[in-house]
């Protein structure tokens, strides 16, 4: 198993590909090329890609692109996808209006 912990390892230089313009993160409109470039900038984890590019940080919170991003990183780093952690799961699981989130129903047993 190849380790992704050494961030100085040589992963080759960024070479653009024909399909780099394809959107991966539909919410934030982040392309495959941008994600591949970010990996070559040293972003080796799903969390780092997310924070660097906003991929997976839009309205759907990466529900659609999560696996795509993970597979892209794995391919670019030549590791198996299982080696990479998915992004952190965070509440709320679906978008909630502030007035609703702030409106806590108090029920007494």
């Amino acid at each position, binding site marked *: 198993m190849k380790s992704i912990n050494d*961030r*100085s390892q040589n992963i080759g230089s960024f070479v653009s590909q024909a399909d780099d313009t394809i959107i991966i993160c539909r919410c934030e409109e982040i392309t495959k090329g941008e994600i591949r470039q970010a990996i070559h900038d040293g972003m080796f984890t799903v*969390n780092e890609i997310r924070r660097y590019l906003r991929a997976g940080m*839009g309205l759907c919170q990466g529900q659609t692109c999560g696996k795509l991003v993970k597979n892209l990183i794995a391919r670019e780093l030549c590791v198996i996808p299982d080696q990479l952690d998915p992004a952190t799961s965070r509440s*709320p699981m679906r978008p909630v209006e*502030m007035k609703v*989130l702030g409106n806590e129903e108090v029920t007494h047993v």
Partner: protein
Amino acid sequence: MSKHTDVIIIGAGIIGNATAYYLARKGLSVTVLEASKDIGIGGSSRNGGGVRQSGRDTRELPLAMWGIKNLWPGLSEELGVDVEYTQKGNLRLGKTEAHQKILQGLTDKAVACGLDVRMINGDEIRAINPYLSDEVTCASWCPTDGHANPLTATLGYYKKARELGVRFITEAPCFELRKIKGVIRQVVTPDAIYEADKVLVAAGFDSRKILATVGIDVPMMPLKMECLVTEAEPPMFLQMLGTADADFYGHQSKHGSFVFGGSSGFEHLNKDNGSPISSSIGASCTCRGIIKYFPALADAKIVRAWAGWLDDCADHVPVISPVAEVPGLYIACAFSGHGFGIAPAVGYNVAEMIADGHSTIDLSALRYDRFQPKQ
């Protein structure tokens, strides 16, 4: 690859990354060891993004003022990453006489240090930010404050440092610091022993445990804080916001989403399972606080909430210092929730401290030994 470099930095947060970058720029070889799997996963990416001078302790204010003057404006260009630095002022809001008193005190102290900050009334506040509710009656206003994106700033420093040859190793928690012949020399991780002439401990709250291995203590406690972020909204305002009561703070990001931090008041009683999971009430409390100040945001949807640990110092001011008992060892931790805005200045000055033995800004008020009994 040799495991010896001029400097080892423990902790790949924004402090560690910025220091690594400025050290590399001076030509030093640097290794950064990060305990977790991700770069910048701690407080660096879990804060409200404030880049402010107002409301600060006078001991750290010079760093904040110097960084805003000298580093923040050119940072995006320097790092090649948009750190979204926006200098459109900071409103610290109050609703009551008690608030007014707190704000006035902070303002007076900052003015004495030469900061352009003043108290303004409700009408003046709403002239700056028309979305604020009528309940807001006073504020301190510092027009040179602002905000930036903590995520891209932290990773921007990482990217640039990496480009300059800094070696970053993740999942490398430091078990032990070791002196050889009285000076710092080794950093022990589960997989390897790394060697350097100088070591900087910038590992947030974990710094306490690491420093203890060479008999040094920084009195600090972990304090959980929670943040939340909305969906993208149409542009509303550009100021950084805070409140006298610290019930929330935040800003609208370049992306359009609002990033707010806040508290339920129970954070100091936190119970956790080892990771900074959000509490079940934190986000709700923060939302209620925000809506009172910004009724217009009631319909804004929260897309995620997160929690993080502050390394809260006994006197709520950072420790940035060389360690006399362990030559070659340096500390930059205990930022107490104020770290992000001063991070570039800290990195720059700590790099000077390590490389040159002195720094542009006098940091002596932030020494680690300030907690020792007075003689």
